[in-house]
């Protein structure tokens, strides 16, 4: 019995020492990690809503609308502002791709026009195939499309508006990104009707007023 107690005490001390070392390392590295995450988030948001200078996290505020089944993949909702005026919304949607979630950030300006799409993380997709959905050559197809159009994947050169050519050999990953974009558009439409977003929607429409006139000129 004494033997067991001795062994147990030793293990406890060892585990305690290890735990202390880990807690210390955690405290030392955590600030840096947090800073990195924040700056990565900022630069991702800036890349999908280039006109905005400030972003506010509206994920919590939109929880009620997002509870609908079709919005299950939406992780975050951000509102961009520029000079106090509305500059679009960014949605982080993570549908399942080939091997796991494909975290896609979709920037939408007034009238349901997609500004840009960025794939934030696709770590479970295949290198050389599915991972190529992160490339601008694929993602660029989402910009410059008419407002409110619904995206679909094609395996040839796109003909109609809203058609996006899949990455060769990576239809599944491509479809995931397209689903993300469509989900974001649907959520945008749903939110515009409810005025849940702070400062978004200068009226029933999706703020197609002054805010976007000044900011949305480019594109």
């Amino acid at each position, binding site marked *: 019995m004494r033997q067991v107690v001795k062994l147990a005490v030793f293990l406890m001390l060892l*585990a305690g020492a*290890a*735990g202390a070392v*880990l*807690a210390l*390392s*955690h405290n030392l590295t955590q600030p840096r990690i947090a800073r990195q995450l924040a700056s990565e988030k900022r630069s991702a948001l800036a890349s999908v809503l280039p006109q905005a200078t400030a972003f506010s996290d509206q994920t919590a505020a939109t929880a009620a609308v997002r509870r609908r089944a079709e919005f299950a993949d939406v992780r975050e909702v951000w509102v961009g502002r520029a000079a106090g005026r509305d500059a679009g919304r960014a949605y982080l949607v993570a*549908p*399942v791709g*080939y*091997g*796991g979630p494909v975290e896609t950030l979709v920037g939408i300006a007034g009238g349901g026009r997609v500004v840009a799409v960025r794939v934030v993380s696709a770590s479970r997709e295949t290198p050389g195939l599915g991972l190529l959905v992160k490339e601008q050559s694929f993602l660029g197809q989402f910009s410059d499309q008419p407002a409110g159009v619904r995206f679909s994947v094609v395996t040839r050169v796109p003909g109609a508006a809203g058609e996006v050519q899949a990455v060769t050999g990576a239809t*599944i990953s491509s*479809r995931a990104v397209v*689903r993300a974009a469509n989900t974001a558009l649907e959520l945008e439409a749903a939110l515009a009707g409810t005025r849940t977003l702070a400062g978004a929607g200068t009226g029933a429409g999706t703020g197609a007023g002054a805010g976007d006139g000044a900011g949305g000129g480019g594109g």
Partner: protein
Amino acid sequence: MEIAAILLGNILINNFIFSRFLGLCPFFGVSRRVDTAVGMSLAVTFVTTLAAAVTWALQRLILEPLRVGYLQTATFILVIASLVQFVEIVMHRFVPGLYRGLGIYLPLITTNCAVLGVAVLNGEQRYGFGGAVASGLAAGLGWGLAIVLFASVRRRLELAEVPPAMRGFPVAFLAAGLMSIAFSGFAGLFSRLFLR
């Protein structure tokens, strides 16, 4: 439906051996005979299922509320090691034949990447309890499927005329590679069966 997707996913589409590369050391070690392979798979499946359940509880009820997520690796592996020891004792008591048959391979399940792997993956995927258990079960079953299939292939390899430099591991790896190609044929199954 989600459970079905998880089962299918971990057994066939993202098979733990041929797709995820988890549990390879014992895979190449135990697959010389089909009966050992079967016995080992049963033991591993038992452990992965149990480990998935326990580590889920550990993560959700202790690590997250106390905000010590960084202790995940250490606590998980120690829990798994204890679980394996526990399984050993239980097996020794209730199924001594199988226990003896497995011999040294039983404690080695602790170092089987598949066990720790499925535990960590479950956390990443944010499964509920049912999903986590299904995932653990499927991981073990998929691992077992791979190893039993592979054992049959290796029996034939032993009788084949293999160039001296390739005998043993090299040709086994080539065989595994071909089987991996076969398994990658399941890739499109998800989107076909579970169209969202």
